[in-house]
């Protein structure tokens, strides 16, 4: 039987590491993917995810509200922002180093289609990297992670109107980038 997040959070607040690790199992992939799309580098994304989860464990007693997922994603996003600020660069990643998928194409897909799909994914990643960090975060949370506008507002600590605006501008800018690079 699957335990509620809120129960696991309450147990974690009392110092139950097993409960916290259950939450880790549930959300580590989501946190990692957010960091990966924000930073564009698998190694940096792993470090950011590890730091975020460790920070969450240390500070879970101070967590307010019941949405652990939004809280964890906020910590992860803050860590990514700090890292980007430190690096003072936009994330960029060469296509060859993208270990996002298995190296061999799935049997249902021809090698040509596989290469094409990988190229498009790399273009999207580059397009995301060209967005300002707040717009990038909003687009990732909405269109890749599938969060609602309310959850995104909670993660980004801003109003729904600001979320709408950031998503709209981010999508528009990404669309322009893809048009410019000949993907449409």
């Amino acid at each position, binding site marked *: 039987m699957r335990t509620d997040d809120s129960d696991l959070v309450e147990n974690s607040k009392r110092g139950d*590491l097993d409960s*916290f*690790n259950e939450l*880790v*199992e549930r959300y*580590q*992939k*989501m*946190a*990692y*993917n957010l960091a*990966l*799309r924000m930073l564009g580098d*698998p190694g940096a*994304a*792993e470090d950011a*995810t*590890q730091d975020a*989860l*460790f920070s969450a*464990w240390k500070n879970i007693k101070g967590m307010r509200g019941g949405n652990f997922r939004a809280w964890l994603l906020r910590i992860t996003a803050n860590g990514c922002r700090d890292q980007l600020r430190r690096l003072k660069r936009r994330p960029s990643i060469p296509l060859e180093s993208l*270990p*996002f*998928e298995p190296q061999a194409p799935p049997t249902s897909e021809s090698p040509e289609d596989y290469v094409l799909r990988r190229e*498009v*994914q790399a273009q*999207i990643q580059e397009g995301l990297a060209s967005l300002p960090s707040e717009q990038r975060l909003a*687009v990732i949370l*909405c*269109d*890749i992670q599938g969060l609602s*506008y309310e959850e995104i507002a909670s993660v980004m600590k801003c109003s729904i109107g600001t979320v*709408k605006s950031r*998503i*709209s501008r981010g*999508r*528009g800018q*990404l*669309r322009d980038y*893809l*048009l410019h690079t000949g*993907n*449409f």
Partner: protein
Amino acid sequence: MWNKLAGLRKDDCGRTKQRLSAYLDRRLSPEDQRRVEQHLADCRGCQEELHSLEATVALLHRLPQVSPSRSFRIARTEPSRRWTPVPALRLATVGAAMLLIMAFTADLTNFFDASQSPIDQKWGPSYTDNRSTAMEGYNKADAGTLTPGDGQEPGLPSDGALGSTEAAWVRPLVYGLAGLVVVLGGVTAWLWLRPKRPPKHRAA
């Protein structure tokens, strides 16, 4: 009049384009939704804009969720029992610093010389007391051995006055303690600030 109508249409296109993203997500009010749909029915440019935006969102939706290469579970570990010199060094630094302050304060307030008169400070406390005894000894002893006027008064203790002995050990004490504080503090700071290995309990 045609210009005015064209301007109105342009404004309408601008407003619609701003709302297309929220329209895709069905986050517009029913009234705004209806307005956008009405405009889209007549405007080819905004239709194209909507289609390209839909294609962008579809591409984003198709991006795979990547599995991390390892688990990020927090491991349960006992607190490290490995001995580290930092606490002991910190304590030693604090102790040495306190001793230094005490010695420095005592030196400033002449604590070590407080019981001596100016004469004692110059000649030593035994000078006035022993002068008569020394003179008697001078009369009795070999005059060639104890010669007045050779730069040393009769009765002056040959190992130096007590006052000058105190001054001689107080200064080295203060300087020694200051050096000790600097060395201990430096070593402690270096141990404290040097790159640390990541905590063991971070990774599972």
